[in-house]
């Protein structure tokens, strides 16, 4: 049997990125401000982690104008949801293994 750590995904197991996927696991989509406030992040920090998640195909980012206001919406992809579920499973297995 493999150790639970071998199941961890390099992209997802970073805490901020895991937090982003946790929010997106509950909501069909969230905007940049909601993610920043909910996860208590700075603009730069959130942007950096969103970019990593987008490059890995875990989230889709769409920038739109609502009226004159620019807005960034983020939603988890199927791949992102699966990676999040696998990560939680691996973390729980890790806790159980060392609990």
């Amino acid at each position, binding site marked *: 049997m493999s150790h639970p750590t071998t199941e*961890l995904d390099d992209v997802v197991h970073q*805490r901020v990125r895991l937090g982003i996927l*946790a929010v997106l696991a*509950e909501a069909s989509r969230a905007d940049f401000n909601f993610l920043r406030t909910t*996860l208590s992040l700075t603009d730069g920090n959130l942007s950096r982690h969103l970019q990593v998640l987008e490059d890995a195909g875990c989230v889709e980012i769409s920038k739109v104008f609502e009226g004159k206001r620019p807005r960034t919406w983020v939603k988890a992809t199927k791949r992102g949801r699966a990676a999040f579920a696998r990560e939680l499973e691996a973390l*729980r297995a890790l806790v159980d293994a060392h609990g």
Partner: protein
Amino acid sequence: MNAIDDPVSTLTEVERARARTRASLNSVWYPLVLFGAASLGAAAVAALDVKWTGVYWLLAYGACFLAVRRYAVARASRIGVGELDSRGVRLWLAFPLVLIVAGTVAGTAGGVRGLVMANGVVVGAWYLLVARWAGSALMAVLGIAVILVTAVLAAVIDADNLIAVANLAIGAVLLAGGLYARGSDENP
């Protein structure tokens, strides 16, 4: 810092983020007020001619669904999260089917009292499920209240007036719950 460094606190943080998101998504006041008002309307229809109550509820449910969907889109745009997704829409469409099947089966077996009791139990159970998902104590209280009020009314009110009285009482409970929720909602 990686999640692997402290998996227990990471899992706790993940659950906290999910709960915060659910709490933001969960705005129950609007559907409660709408369905409370619709239920009061159903009481009036039942008092006039009880056979039109079913048709009234089908139309009222459709109108409430469209209104809640419109509200959910506007609220999501305002607070930056959520929207009624396809899973939510499916649940909204499945709920009246469960209500009709339960009401028909229980109504055939137990008459008007069976019909009213079955509807009360389905509505109450639905609220308890929502309460569990959203972590909402108010919805849990309302779920239990709907079941208890229905059970008491089914036991003491005569069958001829039961549908009107039950709709009146449940409507009042939902309306009161909705107005209370409206007052405590940070993003109404």
